């Protein structure tokens, strides 16, 4: 099933490139067209192979994705995407410890001392390395100058 979705995605992506190449000057369009065209053919082969494989696998028992795994994945996804979205608003040095702590607890870390230690410690180390030593700019957020 997943393979079918992947094939559809690939078809859409390569199809887009193929069609969008038409509005490009000829010299720029040759290569993308060639590559996306080949990709479409290969995806078709892949889809075919996957369907053949799925027919064979009908006899085998299906593997269930455990609810726990799904929950963990969702936590990771939501936490990370919020982290990135809020970076420019709240700044890196504020968001990072919050993110680290939240995700660690969500993923089941029981040892509070370890969690806080790692969260604050990592942030501190990154601060020393990136900001003090190397003067590499870091998202500061609009709440702070």
């Amino acid at each position: 099933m997943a393979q079918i979705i992947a094939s559809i995605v690939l078809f859409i992506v390569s199809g887009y490139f193929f069609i969008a190449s038409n509005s490009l000057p000829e010299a720029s369009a040759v290569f993308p067209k060639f590559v996306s065209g080949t990709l479409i053919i290969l995806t078709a082969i892949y889809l075919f192979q996957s369907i053949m494989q799925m027919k064979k696998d009908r006899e085998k028992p299906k593997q269930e994705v455990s609810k726990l795994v799904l929950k963990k994945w969702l936590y990771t996804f939501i936490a990370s995407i919020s982290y990135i979205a809020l970076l420019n608003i709240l700044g890196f040095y504020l968001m990072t410890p919050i993110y680290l702590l939240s995700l660690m607890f969500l993923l089941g870390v029981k040892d509070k001392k370890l969690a806080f230690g790692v969260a604050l410690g990592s942030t501190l180390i990154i601060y020393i390395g990136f900001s003090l030593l190397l003067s590499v700019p870091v998202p500061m957020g609009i709440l702070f100058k």
Partner: protein
Amino acid sequence: MRVRNLMLYVVILTMMVFFVGCSTASKEVSKESASSNTASNEPSEAVSAYPEKPVTVIVGFSAGGGTDTAARMLFQYAEKYFGQKFAIVNKPGASGEIAWTELAMSDPDGYTIGFINPPTFLSHPIQRSGCQYELEDFSIIANIVSDPAIIAVNAQSDMNSLDDYFAAAANGDITVGYSGPGSSESLMLRQLEDFTGKSVNKIPFDGSAPSVVALLGGHVDSVCMNVSEAINYVEEGNIKIIGVASKKRVSDFPDVATFDEQKYPIFNIALRGVAGPKGMDSDMLAKIEDSIYKASQDPEFLKKAEEISLPIDYLDASDYKDLLVEMTETLKVEFEKGEW
């Protein structure tokens, strides 16, 4: 357990707020550095106290490159006369467009300025309708570097002048390496072709270094680039310059005739200067301009600039602005004739 966690988070959050707020916030920068400080104070008070903290300089090219090196050197000396540090922030991408767009949109509170590279700086808004800035969105401060374009050939080549060059072009295929369509070199080559009625085979490269490699290896016949990029190779005796597109001969190569002297009235100069967003207080602008002027006269700076072959050409705010307006008009006219 949930409530306890929540309380812990609140404590941490508050700690973090203080930690970050008190930390060296002045070192780092973000787009939204909208500081309301100077706006709320009385204008005269804010200006006479200016500068109260470091000023950010947005540079649209990567650290270590030619533009970045020039900017860092300039501001290192300007700091001495300005009274506060200049913090360089590199925001490369889209040949500078990302940085200049950000500069145009930044707060004119006097704490954000940028390094500009005309004519590329001027041609983005003309060539690309999606460009989000134009010359009018900036307060022009000063120019520091003038780097004219040149055409160079392999040291062993028979061609020694533009006449030789275009004679060869008429007889056969002359290949010239350059930075690709859309660049100012591309425009210059087109102008030359229009002027002579002859054409050359233009080969785009990603920068001048690869094109010089190609020239040295004999894969192309000539290269179009800027004087400062060529000095090294000429001194080693690998390439020679057959013409320079400036108004007067350059001091590094007094024997090289200008295009104009050779009866080809085409000019092309890469400039590097400083600008801020429009709407900046005129006294603040004057202070910045003054520090840059003093840096450009500083003997140590000049000596260093000479060591790295940086052709210094200071222009003050009004002269620079006039020049840029003139260049914009020329570019617009050229664009009417078609894209380059």
